[in-house]
C-alpha cells in the first residue's frame, strides 16, 4: 500500500491504476490523480529546487499557483518545461523529470549558492561585475564572461528544438454569458443563466467541475457538496445552450469583453484521438461574464517556511479529500484565520494526527476552540511558528509566544515533532481577470485583501472572488450574478441549503513573523522578507520598484501567493497602510499559456501559399520556385547541371533572340468602373488617363500624399467607364486600399467602384522577335498585326477555343504581348502558347531572366521605388502632369524632395568584368580597409547577355550628372571591390526600336 494514500475517500478511481515515471523512477497512481497527488501518495516530499539558492522544495499548493513543484514533461524528444506537478494529470506512459538541479534533485551542486546568502541579496547583480577599467576584460567583456556562467546557473527547465508534432487550434466563440470558475458560485451562475435561455459557457481550469465542493466537507441540500455539484453539472450537460469547458483556463480579459482561454484537450491522454488538438485556444466574445474565480490562500512568512512539508492548509485539505492522500501523519497548523481549522478537521477525519494548532490570535472563538478539540489538537493561541526543522523533509517546528500588535516574540521556544506543517495567512480573491479588464483593485482592511474593482467592462462577480468566502454566500451571489448576466430577474425559488463550518472570514492582520533565519515571501524566486526590507532601504519602495528590484512576483506563479505578503512587509517598513504602497495591475495571462496554443492553426502554417493558375505547370517543368510575398513564382527553369546564372542567361538570351514567355498572373489587377472612373484615375495617377482611348493601355505612376513615388503599372481602358488597372505584385493590396480610401473618405461624390480582379485573370507575357508570329499561329478571332494591335493596343480573341484579351506592352524591351484569360483557363492558354511557340524556339522564363531584361532596359521596380525615392530620382518626371493636380502633386516639390544631392537612378557597368552584388555601395575612392564615403548603392544587378557585361542599377547621389564617370563598388560584407562606370539606366535599346517593331 502507498504510505500516504488513505483507505477510502477522494475523487480518484482506485480501480484504475496508472503507470508513470518521475526522474526515471517508475510509479503508479490512480485515475484522477495529479502528478503531485500521486507522488505525494508515494511519500515523495522533494519536488523541486528554487531558482536562486537551489533550496529543496516540496509542494506548497495543490493548484495552478504552485511555485515549487515544477517539472518537465517529456514526449519523446519534445519537452514541456516548468509545468506545476499540481496541474499534470497522470496518464499511462507519462514521463516527467525534475529541473534546475545538477546532478540530481536530491543532490544539487548549486545549492552551494545558499552559502552566499547575504551577498546574493536583492540588487546584487547591479552592484558588481562591472569589471576592470583597462585590460582585456574592460568594457563589457568582464560582465559577459561572468554572464556566461550566471546564465547557465539561472533558468528552470530546458526547452527543446525538436518540432512539436502536436497540433493546436483556435476556436472563435460567442455567448451571452461566460462563467469563469465552476465552484458553487460558478455552477449556480451557469445554471441560472442557462435557465433564462442564454447561451452559456462555463470554464474551469481543473479537470473536475465543482471547485471547493470537491474537497470541502460541506453538504448542499443535504448531500455531500461534490454530489450536488455533479448533479448540477449533469443538468447543464444536457442543455444545448450550454458549453462546458473543463481543463480550460480563462487567461486574458481583453477589450469589449473579448476573453482568451486555453483548453488542455489531450494533455491528460496517452494518445490524442486522430486530428485532436493538444490545446485549443478559445477566443470568446461574451455579452457578459460572471467571474467566480474563487480565492488563493496566502502563506505566512516565517523562518523556514519553505521547507518541504510546509504546505498551505487548504492544499492539504484538497489532497486528503479530493485525492485521498495525506501530506503527513503528524500535522501541525499555523494560521492567522479560521479557515485552517476546517482543514484540521478534514485531515483528522482522513486519518492524520493533528499535533498542534498555532494561531497568532490570542483570542479564539468558541467555535474554533471546539473544532480544535474535535481535531484533538493542542492549541497554541497567541503563538507563532518561528522555525522549522529537517532537511529534504520536515521533522519538526518550533513555536513561541507572539504578540500580534507589536510582533514581539517572547517566552521559550517549544519544539513540536511534526512531518507536515500547514499554514494559512488568509485569502486573496482571484481578481486577476477583473484587473486585466481595466480597473484598479480596492483594499479591504477587514479581509486584509484586495477586492475586485468596480467593473470597467461587462462582468459580475460572485463568491470568494468578491470576498464572500462562505459557500452559502457563493450560492446566493452566483445565482444572482447568473440571472443578472442573462438579463433575467430574481426568482423567488429557494436557494440550496448549505451545511458548513462557520468561521470568521477576516484574518488577523499578520503576514510575517520576524525571527532569525530566512523567511520566504516569493518561494520560487527566493525573495525573502529581508530582501523586501533591503529594497526599502535602497529606496525601491513603490510596488513596481519592489517587484523589479527583488524579482518578487516575477516567477512562473506570477506572485499569486506572494504578492500581498510582499506588499504588507513593505508597508510595514514604510509605516504606511498597504494600499498606499500600491496595487499591482494584473496583465494577461492569468496563468502561463502555451505558445503553441496562441499560434494555433498557424503553427506550421504561418501564411497561406498564393498560387497562380499555372503553378503546377511550372513545378512540373522544372521551375525553381521563389517566394514573393505570399506568392510563389518561377525563379528559373533550370536544366540539369545549370547554375542559376546559366539558366537565366539562357532564358533571357532566347527571349531576345526568338521568344520567351513568363507568368505575370501575380500582377495586381483592379477593375475601376463607373462614370467617373477616368476622372478618378486622373487624380490618382501623375499622368492623364481621361485622354486614353478605349482599347488602349497606358503606363501610369502613382505618388503617395507626401509626394514620394508609390507604385507603377499599366492601366487598360476596356470601355468608356471600364478600366483594368495593373499594379506591382508587391503593392497590389496597398494600392487597392489607397484607392478605396480616396473613394470612400476623400471623394465620396465620385461614382467609381474598384474591385480586386487579380485572381480573375491569368496572365502570360510573351515577348521577343518571334512573339507576334507565335500569337498569329494560335490566336483566332482577331488579327495581331501592327495595324490591329499597335503598341499599347488591346484586342480580344481566342486561343484554343477560350476567350483571351491581349495587350501589346513590353517590360522586357522586346516586341511583347500580355495575354490574359480567365484564370480557370490559364493553364489551357499557357499550354497552347507553349505548343504554338515550339517551332519558334519559345522558352519559358522566370523572375531572374525577367529581372535581367528589366535591368537592361532600366525599368524600375520595388527595389528602386522603395518609399524614399521621388519620380525625379527615377527620371520619371516626364510623367508628372502639369495640367492637373494629382495625389502627391502638392507635396512633391518640397525642399527635401528636390535637393541636389538626392540619390538618383543610374546604370553601372563593372569595369573588371566580375559579378556585382545587390546591396553593394558605391564610392568615389576605394578604401578597402576602412570603407567610407558611400555615395549610393546597387539596387539590382545581373550579367547582361545582351551587353556581355556585368551591369547594375543603382541609386547614386546626384547620379545623373555622373554619367560617364568612374566610381567603385565597395562591398566590404562580401569583400567585393572594383571599378565601375556610371551610365544611364537605359542600357539596352534606349530608343525602344525593338518593342515598337
Amino acid at each position, binding site marked *: 500500500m502507498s504510505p500516504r494514500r488513505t483507505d477510502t475517500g477522494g475523487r480518484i478511481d482506485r480501480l484504475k491504476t496508472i503507470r508513470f515515471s518521475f526522474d526515471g523512477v517508475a510509479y503508479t497512481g490512480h485515475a484522477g490523480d495529479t502528478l503531485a497527488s500521486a507522488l505525494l501518495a508515494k511519500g515523495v516530499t522533494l519536488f523541486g529546487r528554487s531558482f536562486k539558492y537551489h533550496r529543496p522544495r516540496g509542494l506548497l499548493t495543490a493548484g495552478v499557483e504552485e511555485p515549487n513543484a515544477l517539472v518537465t514533461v517529456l514526449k519523446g524528444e519534445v519537452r514541456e518545461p516548468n509545468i506545476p506537478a499540481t496541474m499534470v494529470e497522470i496518464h499511462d506512459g507519462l514521463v516527467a523529470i525534475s529541473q534546475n538541479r545538477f546532478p540530481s534533485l536530491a543532490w544539487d551542486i548549486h545549492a552551494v549558492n545558499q552559502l552566499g546568502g547575504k551577498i546574493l541579496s536583492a540588487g546584487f547583480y547591479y552592484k558588481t561585475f562591472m569589471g576592470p577599467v583597462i585590460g582585456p576584460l574592460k568594457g563589457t567583456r568582464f560582465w559577459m564572461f561572468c554572464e556566461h556562467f550566471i546564465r547557465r546557473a539561472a533558468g528552470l527547465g530546458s526547452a527543446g528544438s525538436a518540432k512539436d508534432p502536436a497540433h493546436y487550434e483556435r476556436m*472563435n466563440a460567442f455567448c451571452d454569458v461566460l462563467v469563469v470558475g465552476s465552484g458553487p458560485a460558478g455552477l449556480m451562475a451557469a445554471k441560472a443563466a442557462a435557465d433564462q435561455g442564454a447561451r452559456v459557457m462555463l470554464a474551469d481550469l481543473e479537470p473536475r467541475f465543482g471547485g471547493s465542493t470537491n474537497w470541502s466537507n460541506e453538504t448542499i441540500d443535504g448531500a455531500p457538496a461534490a454530489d450536488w455539484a455533479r448533479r448540477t453539472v449533469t443538468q447543464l450537460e444536457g442543455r444545448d445552450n450550454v458549453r462546458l469547458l473543463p481543463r480550460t483556463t480563462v487567461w486574458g480579459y*481583453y*477589450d*469589449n*469583453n*473579448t476573453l482568451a482561454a486555453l483548453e488542455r484537450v489531450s494533455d491528460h491522454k496517452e494518445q490524442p484521438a486522430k486530428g485532436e488538438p493538444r490545446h485549443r485556444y478559445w*477566443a470568446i*466574445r461574451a455579452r457578459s461574464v460572471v467571474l467566480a474565480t474563487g480565492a488563493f490562500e496566502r502563506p505566512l512568512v516565517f523562518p523556514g517556511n519553505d521547507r518541504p512539508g510546509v504546505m498551505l492548509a487548504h492544499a492539504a485539505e484538497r489532497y486528503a479529500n479530493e485525492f485521498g492522500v495525506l501530506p503527513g501523519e503528524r500535522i501541525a497548523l499555523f494560521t492567522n484565520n479560521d479557515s485552517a481549522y476546517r482543514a484540521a478537521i478534514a485531515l483528522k477525519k482522513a486519518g492524520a494526527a493533528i499535533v498542534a494548532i498555532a494561531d497568532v490570535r490570542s483570542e479564539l472563538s468558541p467555535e474554533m476552540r471546539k473544532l480544535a478539540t474535535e481535531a484533538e489538537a493542542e492549541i497554541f493561541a497567541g503563538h507563532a511558528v518561528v522555525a522549522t526543522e529537517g532537511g529534504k523533509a520536515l521533522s519538526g517546528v518550533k513555536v513561541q509566544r507572539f504578540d500580534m500588535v507589536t510582533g514581539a516574540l517572547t517566552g521559550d521556544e517549544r519544539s513540536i515533532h511534526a512531518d507536515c506543517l500547514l499554514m494559512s495567512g488568509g485569502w486573496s480573491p482571484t481578481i486577476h481577470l477583473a484587473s486585466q479588464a*481595466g480597473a484598479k483593485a480596492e483594499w479591504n482592511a477587514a479581509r486584509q485583501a484586495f477586492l475586485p474593482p468596480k467593473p*470597467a467592462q461587462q462582468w459580475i462577480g460572485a463568491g470568494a472572488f468578491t470576498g464572500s468566502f462562505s459557500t452559502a454566500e457563493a450560492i446566493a451571489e452566483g445565482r444572482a450574478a447568473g440571472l443578472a448576466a442573462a438579463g433575467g430577474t430574481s426568482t423567488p425559488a429557494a436557494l440550496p441549503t448549505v451545511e458548513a463550518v462557520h468561521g470568521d472570514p477576516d484574518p488577523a492582520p499578520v503576514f510575517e513573523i520576524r525571527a532569525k533565519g530566512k523567511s520566504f515571501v516569493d518561494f520560487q524566486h527566493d525573495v525573502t522578507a529581508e530582501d523586501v526590507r533591503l529594497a526599502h532601504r535602497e529606496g525601491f519602495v513603490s510596488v513596481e520598484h519592489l517587484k523589479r528590484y527583488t524579482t518578487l512576483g516575477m516567477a512562473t506563479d506570477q506572485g499569486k501567493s506572494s504578492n500581498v505578503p510582499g506588499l504588507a512587509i513593505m508597508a510595514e517598513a514604510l509605516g504606511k497602510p498597504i494600499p498606499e504602497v500600491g496595487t499591482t495591475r494584473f496583465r494577461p495571462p492569468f496563468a502561463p499559456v502555451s505558445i503553441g496554443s496562441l499560434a494555433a492553426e498557424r503553427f506550421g502554417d504561418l501564411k497561406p501559399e498564393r498560387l497562380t493558375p499555372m503553378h503546377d505547370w511550372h513545378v512540373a517543368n522544372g521551375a525553381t520556385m521563389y517566394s514573393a510575398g505570399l506568392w510563389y513564382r518561377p525563379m528559373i527553369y533550370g536544366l540539369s547541371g545549370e547554375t542559376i546564372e546559366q539558366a537565366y542567361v539562357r532564358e533571357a538570351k532566347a527571349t531576345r533572340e526568338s521568344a520567351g514567355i513568363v507568368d505575370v498572373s501575380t500582377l495586381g489587377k483592379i477593375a475601376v468602373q463607373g462614370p467617373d472612373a477616368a476622372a478618378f484615375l486622373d*487624380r490618382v495617377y501623375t499622368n492623364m488617363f481621361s485622354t486614353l482611348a478605349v482599347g488602349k493601355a497606358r503606363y501610369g505612376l502613382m505618388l503617395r*500624399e*507626401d509626394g514620394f513615388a508609390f507604385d507603377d503599372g499599366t492601366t487598360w481602358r476596356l470601355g468608356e467607364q471600364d478600366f483594368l488597372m495593373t499594379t506591382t505584385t508587391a503593392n497590389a493590396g496597398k494600392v487597392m*486600399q489607397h484607392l*478605396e*480610401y480616396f473613394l*470612400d*473618405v*476623400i471623394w*465620396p461624390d465620385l461614382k467609381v467602384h474598384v474591385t480586386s480582379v487579380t485572381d480573375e485573370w491569368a496572365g502570360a507575357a510573351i515577348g521577343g522577335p518571334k512573339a507576334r508570329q507565335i500569337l498569329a499561329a494560335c490566336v483566332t478571332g482577331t488579327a495581331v498585326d501592327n495595324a490591329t494591335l499597335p503598341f499599347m493596343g488591346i484586342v480580344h480573341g481566342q486561343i484554343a477555343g477560350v476567350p483571351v484579351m491581349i495587350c501589346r506592352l513590353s517590360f522586357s524591351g522586346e516586341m511583347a504581348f500580355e495575354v490574359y484569360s480567365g484564370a480557370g483557363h490559364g493553364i489551357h492558354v499557357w499550354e497552347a502558347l507553349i505548343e504554338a511557340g515550339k517551332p519558334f524556339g519559345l522558352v519559358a522564363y522566370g523572375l531572374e531572366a525577367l529581372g535581367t531584361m528589366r535591368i537592361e532596359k532600366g525599368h524600375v521596380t520595388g527595389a528602386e521605388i522603395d518609399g524614399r525615392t521621388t519620380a525625379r530620382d527615377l527620371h520619371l518626371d516626364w510623367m508628372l502632369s502639369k495640367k492637373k*493636380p*494629382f495625389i502627391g*502633386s*502638392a*507635396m512633391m516639390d*518640397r525642399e527635401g524632395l528636390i535637393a541636389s544631392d538626392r540619390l538618383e537612378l543610374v546604370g553601372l557597368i563593372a569595369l573588371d568584368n566580375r559579378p556585382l552584388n545587390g546591396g553593394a555601395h558605391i564610392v568615389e575612392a576605394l578604401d578597402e580597409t576602412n570603407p567610407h564615403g558611400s555615395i549610393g548603392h546597387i539596387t539590382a544587378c545581373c550579367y547582361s547577355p545582351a551587353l556581355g557585361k556585368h551591369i547594375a542599377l543603382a541609386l547614386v547621389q546626384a547620379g545623373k550628372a555622373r554619367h560617364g564617370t568612374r566610381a567603385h563598388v565597395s562591398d566590404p560584407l562580401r569583400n567585393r571591390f572594383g571599378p565601375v562606370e556610371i551610365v544611364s539606366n537605359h542600357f539596352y535599346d534606349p530608343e525602344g526600336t525593338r518593342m515598337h517593331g
Partner: protein
Amino acid sequence: MLITCPYCGPRDVIEFTYQGDGNRERPDPASQNFEAWNAYVYDRLNPAGDHNEIWQHSGGCRAHLRVVRNTLTHEISSVAFVRGDHASAARRKAEDKA
C-alpha cells in the same frame, strides 16, 4: 476589441485596418496652401481620450468607418460609415427588428 460595423455587425479588430486621425482635412486638390497640406499629411491631434478616427473594414465589407474611440480605455462610443449611407443604417435597423 470589437468594432460594430454598421453593415456587418460587431467584428473583431483583426478584420479592420486603421486609417488614423479622422479630423484631418484634405485641402482642395489644387490648393497651394502648403501649411494646410503639411498639417493634413503630418500633424495629428493624438488626444488622450475620445479620438475621432477612421477604420476600414478591410476583412469584411471594406467600407470605411468613422469611429469615436477612447484612447485611454479603448471604449468605442460611436461607429458610422464615413460615406453617409443612411439607407444601409435603416436596413440594419430593419434587420434588428426582424
